[in-house]
């Protein structure tokens, strides 16, 4: 019997009659129903139309109103899940403890979301060389094993890393541009989807969006797993 990747309890999979009788594909689940219920999906008609945060109606949240005052850039983000306790615990285990196989929990769902955006190219937010050495993987690319993506962005070589998650909101909003465009030819005239794991203040993904837009992209949108 399979074991839930998150709570390690054994799970039994009950097939429906259709699945038993007809040659329909059977989706392999990696986490049990109970764990899956802990994650709160965001519906786009009940979310901020700019950053994708969960709201009661489709309006623009206060954070995004502030963003719109200071920048003229057109940028829309869609977030899949609320960054609740379960999602925080997941990120802790996946990203910080480094349990790479946990990516399988969200992979099918996330792939669907990426494909639905119908962008010309998909650009995951890169991680620094240092992180790659210790963590061994890029947490965003881990979520996209079956998606074709490009890497026109790179982290500045003199960028010394202070973890975004260890800063407070004010410091995060002040952080300077960490990225450079290493391959501008990939972006020019295309519609680009930037993918990240968590949208917190929006600083990181907006830095990336700014660069990509300046490099001549036709359209820039964002997709994050959590907000």
């Amino acid at each position, binding site marked *: 019997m399979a074991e839930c990747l998150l709570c390690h309890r054994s799970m039994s999979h009950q097939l429906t009659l259709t699945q038993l009788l007809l040659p329909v594909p059977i989706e392999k689940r990696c986490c049990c129903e109970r764990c899956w219920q802990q994650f709160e999906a965001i519906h786009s008609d009940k979310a901020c139309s700019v950053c994708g945060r969960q709201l009661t109606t489709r309006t623009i949240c206060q954070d995004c109103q502030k963003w719109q005052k200071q920048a003229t850039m057109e940028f829309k983000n869609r977030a899949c899940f609320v960054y609740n306790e379960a999602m925080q615990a997941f990120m802790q285990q996946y990203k910080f*403890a*480094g*349990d*790479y*196989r946990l990516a399988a929990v969200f992979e099918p769902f996330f792939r669907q979301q990426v494909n639905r955006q119908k962008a010309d190219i998909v650009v995951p937010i890169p991680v620094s060389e240092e992180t790659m*050495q*210790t963590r*061994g*993987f890029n947490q965003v690319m881990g979520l996209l094993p079956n998606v074709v993506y490009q890497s026109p962005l790179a982290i500045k070589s003199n960028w010394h890393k202070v973890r975004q998650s260890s800063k407070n909101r004010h410091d995060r909003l002040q952080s300077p541009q960490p990225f450079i465009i290493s391959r501008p030819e990939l972006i020019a005239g295309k519609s680009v989807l930037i993918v990240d794991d968590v949208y917190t203040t929006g600083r990181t993904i907006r830095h990336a969006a700014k660069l990509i837009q300046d490099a001549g992209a036709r359209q820039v949108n964002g997709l994050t797993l959590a907000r």
Partner: protein
Amino acid sequence: MDVSEFFGRQLLSSELPVGWKERVSKLQVQPGIEVMATTVRCNRCGVTTTKQRCTLPNNQFYCPSCIQLGRVSTLNSLVSLPEPNRFERINQKDVLTWKGTLSKTQDKCATDILTVFQERRQHLLWAVTGAGKTEMLFRGIAWALSQGLRVGLASPRIDVCNELFPRLVQAFKRTDIQLLHGRSDIPYRYCQFTICTTHQLLRFKVAFDVLIIDEVDAFPFAQDDGLWFAAQQAKKADGALLFLTATPGKKLFQMIQRKELSISYLPLRYHGHLLPTITCRLASKWQLKLEKGRLPRSLIVQMQQRLKHNIRFLLFVPHVAQLPAVQTSLQHTFPNEQIVTVHAGDPDRLEKVQLMRSEEINFLVTTTILERGVTFPGIDVFVLGADDAVFSSAALVQIAGRAGRNVARPTGDVIFWCQSFAPNVLEAIKQIKYVNRKGRVLQQVRAEDNG
């Protein structure tokens, strides 16, 4: 950071402070993961994983089994420093500050343990629940400490560690003792005597001259091969390893058969009586009936009798989800009783157990969390749905062992309600019969000695 913090430890290279690798000359470095054709093997927990389950990008691998204690991967390595036993010697007479006495049978076991430690063997002490295991360890531990040996006492359960710690501090007042587990904030320091959870053993290597593992049969130690491996790694190659349990499992019996382990029994409880035996009652489809708000008639009758004679009891049910239904049903049947239920995730867990301890309530409805480590004197024990898979045979023996822990009422009733005589129930009954047979022989020998 002091170099002594690394004595006998096994840490990840990424945990070392910068420059330490060069500074400490005796540091032993080994790769964290051994890569084979289709599998990888972790050098910290010894678990083999198929590559499919543990591949990182760029052909790197990690170990998902022991990831809780920091990830071992091909990107980092394991570093350890040999244990130099740098402890202050204490005079043998002054080590043990415990002034209690042992019964004759306990005394024999204590001497057995001492010889095991002196001869540095692997040994299993099968002592029934409520035999007074901790006190029997004191003589052996005192010897080891006076010889300047490093001693470790590990248990799979944090609760057990927390309970043992103050008792051992009292018994060895002159020794430096550390309590180590994942939920405590106290940082590690180098001590002669360490009390820790079995998971923490993964972070030791060739450290202990004497290693004691309490409640070997408890989750997760019994089920986790990685922790067995850790226990072997944490002790010195010629170190003594003592397993303590009331309910040895298959693995231990196999080791005994292969002569890797010697065994001694203590089949009598500290008050010299046998274990209470299990009575089984059939309760067909009780789960369906519970959904309709009914409990087995015979259970209600038994409960009524206990309440009439002022005998307190515990009622075990298999799942947390069944607690509310049992509670409403009981509230309906016993309107004058305060019905309290408790489970592992209950925020008021400790308060509720305290209510039962202070005799403010007559009974407590609980899940397996109260299976071990708690004593309510003179209670009876009922288990509803004992054949459920959540109760291992070890758990059932432990549950049965909650009864009859009082000199004034050394026997108690243990009644199981089940739908079928499942293997776990039969195994539990068999184990209790087996120790009681041994116990009876011992009782006879004692009677002859006295007569």
